[in-house]
């Protein structure tokens, strides 16, 4: 056997493909071959390493050197200097790398500072190769559950871990499973919500692109716990690479007998079908998603009955977010108390955030629940771009809350943010610097909702149209004296009377923007 001297990881995700990663990869492989290094240097594809906007990213191990903005033209020099002569090519080294990505392959000790549960394998393994997932203890959790735990015990473990849904509503996952398990009926379903449409959010995409087997394993465990034998993943239609990788992973899992009948020679059978969405934010809402899966317009349903008793085709159905399910294998493998070692008492575990806007290194990070907004912005994302001042952040997506500078030290978790009338939502953090016009940002939020209101109920359909009309005239200096009161009134009525959370959720961005930036918005509207 040849001893591989260097591993070169190339990040292949939708972002780096955009930047030309495929061409770089091909050139690299060819160049290595023409230098006769094929046996000594292996080139591996991996998912996102977390940084975005750094072009094509390569990592050379064992040194752990990150290169960014690599083009095919750079490859001969890179191979010659670093891989042949062992001299890192300084001009391409990324100075700003996402902090938590400075990981050594041996994981002991470092885990506490750089907790990686969900993204444990992302940016490290080749997501298109099931063997690499298995080598990282993949599918051990489902084996453990099937051989040593009853479904009730698996549910108990999930409950004890304190895992709550990462899709926004923060409902206790173990309880959701329990309700579905207890619900009457033989046929039950697990549905994974990968419709990710909350503006500013792309964590589910990067989990799917970086470690699809983790989701499959999470769904298997959920299926075993609930007593379901069929799962669906509803992925938004724009996520072509996610769909491709997940389908490939499902195919491999079937080949290995990890999906299908009598998994690992147990009595448990489970299979997964991928469904492709067609562009509608409201389909991220679980009942609308179910309608869409059934082949209808994606209108939300009345609740109750909740999906856990009457969901897909009126059968008991668990709907869980991608990130939620990706937490499950590690919880089963290491136990609830291990999981509780991360995060806060009330919100254990980690959260994957997408941090974007006016920061130095936008991207994806996984940090413990309860990390402060300040740390996320200044420690992980390199602070505000171009040395400017922080003005505010929109946390939780368009349906989230604006926060001002006095909120920088707020601990970011579901429970704590609620105390400040804010939400963690999907984990999107949009950072705005001193130059940003807050009226203009609020306008953009309202336009988003008008576009995405599904038209099913009157308060939301008419309310969003009115809100846009008012904010448009405010921003073109034709504002009227009572416009701000009107915005708040309409938002209140919508919160009280809209049929689904889409219309109800608009109150939060409106009220919070006025709370922190009311004076500015008022004076801007008068100009």
């Amino acid at each position, binding site marked *: 056997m040849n001893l591989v001297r260097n591993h070169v990881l190339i990040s292949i995700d939708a972002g780096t493909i955009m930047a030309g990663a495929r061409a770089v990869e091909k050139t690299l492989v060819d160049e290595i071959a023409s230098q006769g290094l094929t046996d000594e240097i292996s080139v591996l594809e991996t998912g996102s390493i977390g940084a975005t906007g750094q072009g094509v990213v390569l990592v050379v191990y064992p040194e752990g050197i990150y290169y960014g903005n690599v083009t095919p033209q750079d490859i001969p020099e890179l191979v010659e200097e670093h891989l042949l002569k062992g001299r890192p090519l300084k001009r391409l080294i990324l100075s700003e790398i996402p902090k938590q990505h400075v990981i050594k392959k041996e994981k002991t000790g470092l885990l506490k500072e750089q907790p990686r549960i969900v993204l444990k394998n992302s940016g490290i393994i080749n997501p298109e190769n099931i063997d690499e997932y298995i080598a990282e203890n993949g599918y051990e959790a489902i084996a453990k559950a099937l051989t040593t735990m009853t479904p009730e015990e698996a549910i108990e473990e999930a409950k004890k871990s304190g895992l709550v849904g990462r899709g926004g509503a923060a409902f206790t996952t173990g309880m959701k499973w329990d309700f579905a398990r207890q619900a009457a009926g033989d046929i039950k379903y697990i549905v994974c919500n990968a419709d990710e449409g909350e503006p500013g959010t792309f964590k589910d995409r990067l989990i799917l692109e970086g470690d699809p087997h983790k989701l499959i394993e999470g769904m298997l465990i959920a299926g075993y716990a609930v007593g379901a034998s069929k799962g669906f993943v509803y992925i938004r239609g724009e996520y072509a690479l996610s769909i491709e990788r997940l389908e490939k992973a499902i195919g491999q899992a079937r080949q290995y007998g990890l999906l299908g009948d009598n998994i690992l020679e147990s009595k448990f059978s489970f299979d997964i079908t991928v469904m492709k969405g067609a562009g509608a934010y409201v389909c991220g809402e679980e009942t609308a998603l179910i309608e*869409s899966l059934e*082949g209808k317009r994606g209108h939300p349903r009345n609740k109750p009955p909740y999906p856990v008793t009457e969901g897909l085709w009126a059968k008991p159905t668990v709907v869980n977010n991608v990130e939620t399910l990706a937490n499950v294998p590690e919880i089963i493998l290491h136990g609830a108390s291990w999981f509780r070692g991360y995060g806060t008492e009330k919100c254990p575990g980690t959260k994957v955030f*997408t941090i974007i806007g006016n920061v130095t290194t936008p991207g994806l990070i996984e940090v413990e629940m309860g990390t402060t907004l300040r740390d996320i912005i200044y420690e992980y994302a390199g602070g505000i771009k171009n040395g400017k001042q922080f003005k505010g952040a929109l946390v939780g997506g368009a349906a989230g809350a604006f926060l001002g500078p006095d909120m920088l030290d707020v601990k970011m978790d579901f429970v704590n943010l609620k105390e400040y009338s804010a939400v963690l939502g999907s984990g999107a953090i949009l950072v705005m610097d001193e130059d940003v016009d807050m009226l203009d940002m609020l306008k953009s939020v309202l336009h988003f909702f008008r576009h995405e209101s599904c038209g099913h109920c009157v308060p939301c359909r008419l309310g969003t149209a009115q809100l846009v009309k008012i904010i448009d005239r405010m921003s073109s200096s034709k504002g009227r004296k009572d416009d701000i009161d009107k915005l708040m009134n309409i938002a209140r009525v919508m919160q009280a009377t809209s049929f689904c959370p889409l219309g109800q959720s608009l109150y939060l961005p409106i009220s919070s923007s006025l709370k922190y930036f009311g004076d500015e918005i008022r004076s801007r509207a008068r100009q």
Partner: protein
Amino acid sequence: MYRKQILKKFNPALDNILYILHDLQDNNPEHYLAKEDIRVCADYLGVPYSYVHSVASFYTMFSLKPRGRYIIRLCDSPPCHLMGSQSLLDYLKKELKVNVGETTRDKVFTLELTSCLGACGVAPAMMINEEMFGNLTPAAVDAILEKRRKEL
């Protein structure tokens, strides 16, 4: 005839409707769902024409109007807005001489707005057909359009 081939790939079950519509639209030379597409889908699934029409009109990825060869979907959600999508929109409108929702006279480009594409890490972003583009500037947009024009 090609429509028959498409339908044959799927079971005639209602939960396949989005897949069927995606496939029909992708293969329609004018990149939209024509009346004929809706009709064959309805017949195949055994539902009324109006049912398929109502589903198709609900989802933003489907169009009921003919479109150009390249469909530009510019994101205008708050993160892209913050990073300058408005100026790109103005630029695209001027450059292509169309408004949002319209197709250029030569039927090459259709300009659409979309909500967040999940590419916010490289905002402002847009898609052209299946391909994603980020960190856009007017100059970058120019180069992208130029490349497409040359491919004709």
